[in-house]
């Protein structure tokens, strides 16, 4: 973003695009000065509920078993995340002990009522779906999940009817589907057109931008919230970028690190609801959460950001 082209343009544009999608366009408060520390949120299109644009993933990072020292470190990460205004925490039964560790941390830091709990169903057996979700809920130690997603579209044919029935009964609030690293996008598109899902979860970052072609526009058209996983390509993107100096113009959108640079790129796409970077470091979660404050790039600056990342 150029300094003579303030963020109002970005806000207007975002509002126009979200309104066209039929969503409650509330990219709030894109024009607010960073020092006000009001976190940027996006509405979940199906209800209008506002979600902070940066969440917390748990793939690998929270899988620490029963190691008390590591569990306490994960608790500190969750505490800092919530203190910084974050809400969505995402996990899966596939992530081994991550669900137990989240439950431990939520209970210990008394965070249960302050988060948006997003989990997944991951079993090839449709009959075992409910049972697995209940086991996951017990591990999280929450009353109910806010969101349950079909992990990697595994047996969505049987799991989606189960999830819709649970939503109808008030046992979950939202239903979603996930993929990662560009897999099964055609199937995902088909489900986005045919099923009344609230969320999709995909991989998106300045390098992996395939979803810009079809998935993200379709999400806007259909009023589906978008969660972005693997924003840093499991850290590989940040390791590659670390060899380069952060461009001076990154300050125009309040970025002081490459992590913020990448996250601001992701959440500035008008179809994206929330990015979920994972970390075991309190310093990193603080840095990530700073991306949910201050100014966001406009389209011209987004293109410049892509070029900067591709040069690295």
């Amino acid at each position, binding site marked *: 973003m150029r300094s003579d082209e303030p963020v109002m343009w970005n806000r207007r544009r975002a509002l126009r695009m979200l309104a066209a999608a039929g969503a409650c366009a509330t990219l709030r408060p894109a024009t607010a000065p960073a020092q006000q520390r009001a976190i940027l949120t996006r509405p979940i299109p199906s209800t209008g509920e506002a979600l902070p644009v940066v969440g917390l993933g748990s793939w*690998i*990072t929270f*899988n*620490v*078993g*029963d*190691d008390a020292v*590591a569990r306490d470190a994960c608790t500190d990460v969750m505490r800092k995340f919530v203190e910084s205004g974050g809400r969505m925490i995402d996990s899966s039964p*596939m*992530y*081994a*002990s991550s669900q137990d560790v989240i439950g431990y941390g939520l209970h210990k830091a008394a965070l249960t009522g302050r988060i948006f709990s997003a989990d997944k169903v991951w079993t090839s057996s449709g009959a075992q779906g409910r049972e697995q979700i209940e086991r996951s809920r017990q591990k999280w130690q929450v009353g109910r999940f806010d969101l349950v997603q079909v992990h990697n579209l595994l047996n969505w044919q049987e799991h989606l009817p189960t999830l819709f029935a649970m939503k109808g009964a008030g046992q979950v609030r939202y239903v979603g589907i996930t993929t990662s*690293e*560009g*897999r*099964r996008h055609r199937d995902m598109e088909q489900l986005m057109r045919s099923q009344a899902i609230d969320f999709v979860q995909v991989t998106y970052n300045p390098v992996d931008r395939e979803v810009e072609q079809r998935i993200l526009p379709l999400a806007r058209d259909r009023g589906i919230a978008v969660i972005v996983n693997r924003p840093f390509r*499991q850290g590989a993107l940040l390791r590659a970028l670390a060899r380069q100096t952060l461009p001076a113009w990154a300050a125009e959108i309040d970025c002081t690190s490459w992590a913020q640079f990448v996250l601001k790129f992701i959440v500035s796409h008008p179809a994206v609801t929330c990015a979920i970077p994972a970390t*075991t470091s309190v310093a990193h979660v603080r840095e990530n959460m700073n991306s949910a404050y201050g100014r966001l790039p406009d389209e011209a600056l987004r293109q410049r950001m892509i070029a900067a990342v591709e040069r690295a």
Partner: protein
Amino acid sequence: MSEWWTYRLTSFLLFSPSTYYRMFERYNLAIWPAQLAGVSIGLAIVALLIGKRGHHERIVAGLLAACWMWIALAFHYQRYAQINWAATWFALAFACEALLLVVVGVLAGRLHLQLARSGVHWIATSIVAMSILGYPLLAPITGRPWTTAEIFGVAADPTAIASVAVLALVRGRIRWPLLVVPVIWCAIAAATLWAMDAPEAWVLLAAGLLALWPAVAGTRHDATDAER
């Protein structure tokens, strides 16, 4: 699994390297001084391979079986399964290997090793000795604390390498079913370490292949015996 060709080894890695090695650190602290028993068992196996006393083959099979069963329960089932759901299956495979060693080697007495003083025998014995005395050194060599060292008899990787070396010396086709689990474990462990960018992956792979070589050489030996 659809679009399987798009998956990389790292796609299957469920934990970070720090969590993996921290698991060994906590395991070593929890089971101390079982490591001393593991090393003693390993050295006893080396002595039996060199000395060839009466019933030594049954004893070697029994000692190996004890190590495999310990690792199945104390390591895979109780520890590793916390951070890797596949470890429950690893525990089952290790327990099956232990039972196979007991049935074939101890009860049936069919663990006939190739003669001492042959080239392959000395290679195998050296690999067993290195897996006991050398493998733990990988921890400090790669910059990890001693407390994360993987010890023969209680840790899967050095035990699998040594077992491949011993079982590759077994004469006849019975060696192959005995080798299945140890060889597959070496491959799985090397893949895990490779996904973590750990240099130990290459050590494990090289040692496993070298340890397997006597089995291939032994096949030719068996064929020669049959022609006679």
